[in-house]
């Protein structure tokens, strides 16, 4: 039996070692590692670029459309959407120096409830447990990585490796739409699909309250990062404006009043201290049939109202500063 046990240990060790070696040499940068991206090493004329930053709600903007329309009025200006999925102020802060180094004319920061709670619902056990939760105790004790978006993902590495090394391979992941003006995001099939309002009416209120819950400690942490970001922009005289991202009517109606109040109170307080404008789009499209899900407007020709409105806001602000 000892030999069998030894074989199992050897098999386990070799497999893990192969995986770790592969990860060491062939892993692909995560989307949060944008500070090392060549986008920031371009030689550009200062004050000629406009950026949008934020999470998946901002990703859904049609950056090509916005850029084209801006160029019609201001031919020298270029728009880039630097948003990526699951962004939070904490993550964005890692690359803020690089963003500032490009000296943009204007930055539009899109925020929603779960950005300020640091995706609380993913990282905390949401069950109402009476007795101690063993999972949380173990995670806290051995300090396991809690950010589910930032984990080591072998499948992603494998598929990327095959895609980049074996063209037309059978394993190649399905093609995703990438926009030139959105360097850190792309669109998969489901992001194009519009769900009917009827479909969107089916949502568990508990899911919404868990998504938007403004956990005091987590919110404080994210707000502190937001303050650091704002301070950096202010010091470099870079104009920043905020968008409160659109959400669907059903979802909006299920957000607890307390969480809404906490979210807006914090933003208003920042607005007062750092002197920026807030454009609240949260309810603007709430009843239109343009939604991919409750918190994302689909990337579709019928949903361009969202990108057009953001363009209008940009022009309004540009007119002000140019």
């Amino acid at each position, binding site marked *: 039996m000892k030999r*069998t046990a030894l074989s199992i240990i050897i098999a386990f060790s070799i*497999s893990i070692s192969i995986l770790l070696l*592969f990860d060491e040499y062939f892993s692909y940068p995560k989307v949060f590692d944008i500070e090392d991206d060549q986008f920031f090493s371009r030689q550009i004329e200062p004050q000629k670029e406009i950026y949008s930053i934020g999470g998946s709600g901002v990703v859904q903007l049609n950056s090509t459309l916005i850029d084209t329309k801006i160029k019609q009025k201001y031919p020298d200006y270029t728009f880039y959407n630097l948003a990526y999925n699951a962004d939070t102020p904490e993550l964005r802060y890692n690359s803020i120096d690089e963003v500032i180094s490009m000296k943009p004319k204007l930055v539009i920061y899109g925020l929603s409830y779960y950005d300020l709670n640091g995706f609380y619902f993913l990282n905390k056990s949401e069950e109402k447990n009476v007795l101690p939760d063993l999972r949380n105790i173990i995670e806290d004790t051995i300090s396991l990585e809690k950010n589910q978006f930032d984990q080591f993902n*072998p499948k992603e590495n494998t598929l990327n490796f095959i895609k980049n090394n074996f063209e037309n391979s059978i394993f190649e992941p*399905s093609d995703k739409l990438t926009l030139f003006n959105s360097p850190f995001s792309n669109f998969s099939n*489901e992001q194009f*699909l519009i769900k009917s309002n009827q*479909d969107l009416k089916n949502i568990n209120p508990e899911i919404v309250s868990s998504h938007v819950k403004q956990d005091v400690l987590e919110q404080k942490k994210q707000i502190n990062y937001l303050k650091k970001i704002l301070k950096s922009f202010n010091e470099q005289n870079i104009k920043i404006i905020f968008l409160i991202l659109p959400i669907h009517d059903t979802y909006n109606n299920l957000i607890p009043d307390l969480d809404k109040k906490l979210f807006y109170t914090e933003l208003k307080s920042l607005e007062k201290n750092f002197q920026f404008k807030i454009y609240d789009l949260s309810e603007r499209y709430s009843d239109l049939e343009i939604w991919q899900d409750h918190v994302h407007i689909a990337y579709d020709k019928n949903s361009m109202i969202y990108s057009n409105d953001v363009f209008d806001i940009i022009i309004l602000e540009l007119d002000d500063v140019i």
Partner: protein
Amino acid sequence: MLFNTIDFIIFFVLILTTIIIYKNRNFQYFFLIIASYVFFYYSNNFLITLIIFSTILDFYIAKKIYESRDITYKKKLLAISIVGNLGLLAFFKYTNFAISQFNNLFEIFGFEKIQFLEIILPIGISFYTFQILSYTIDVYRGNLSPSKSFKEFALFVVFFPQLVAGPILRASHFLPQLREKFSPNWKSTELKRALVKNSNLKIGITLMAFGFFKKMFFADNIAPFVDQIFQNPIGHESYVIILGAIGFGIQLYCDFSGYSDIAIGIALILGFQIPKNFNFPFFANSPAEFWRRWHISLSNWVRDYVFFPLVISKKNSIFRIVSSIFVTMFLIGIWHGAGINFIIYGLIHGIYVGTETFFKSKFPSLKNKALFKSLPVKIFSILFTQYLIFLSFLSFRIQDLDHLTYSMNKFVFFDFNFNGFNEFLLDNKLGIFLIVLFIIIHIIAFKRKNILETISNLKLRYWTIFLISLMVLILFFFDSNPRDFIYFRF
């Protein structure tokens, strides 16, 4: 606790090490019970009280039933057990479903809507409830002597490998394994020592590797392909729906049989035998045979405790048999979950098996005809059965009734519309490749029925290479956000 997490690997290694080091029988059993409760508590937290309650209730009720000579008293005790266990199951699993149906029904009369209750469904409640009930009913029927000690019974109920997703154990099969057996006719009163034997370790690990491979390589990697199709099936052509249904059938099989393999493997390493739950269901040549090959422990359970009591009468008319099949399959459907789609799933299988039984009883000589024994007809019957089975899987997968109606319509009435076929294949290369790969491996495994023994008997160095190959494939296609086993939610 999910089997496919590092938490479980650590948990299992700790258990195995402790069992190997401490050979005291009482300690081993006490330790296994505590470990199993920790396993349950890990996912269910305070809901552990439910399984403890059911264990205590049925331990004493079965004992009283066995001791009593009064048939009326026995019936009352049995009724308490059934009401107690099924009452808890019904409350936790079906209350909100009942409320939603009530609200839908009485909305037109202007009744005020009843608020949903904040209920968390305990993981595995459907499995352990059926397991406990089988024990009490067997004791009531006189087919089983009650457990000698509470410790034994508790281990039978809470034994962690199969606790949350089966196979559903029978006390008559499991309890004798807890006692030392020195000769076929004589049972010791001493508890059996849990010994980790070399042969069991090798077969057990091989089975576990198969299980993890099915779950983590096939099921979890086919799932995105299936989800993408059924997230909103409306607008898809027939070929997409059919490929989605095949994908889901394979995903479901790999997910559930993968769990069963892991559970059986773990139990075997610890020295316990758990009956197999799947036997190549995709090679069934009739719906009734499908249920003898798919989720065998549940099929046997409903056969013994629902179907047989329903059909036993002085006059077994074909109508009674068919209607009993219908009721039984309806219960299998609703057992899976509180949803109209699961009721439809059960009813579809009721129609399948009922129709088959009816024709077999009306034309008993057909099966002996040479034509029906020929290879082409056998292959046709397998393919036709699978067509029916995959059609039923649509109702397992799709909850929205409009989506379900659309998908079933497209599945049955093929539209011969191949618009975007090439793009679809190109966009879903990985999912389709895995489906084809699974079919090839499944056919090879079916042809070589003793594949488990063959691999377990390989020389150690080749067996190690086999393990490494399987583990590398599993690890390289492992998504860092592991998916729950589908049957956990039942």
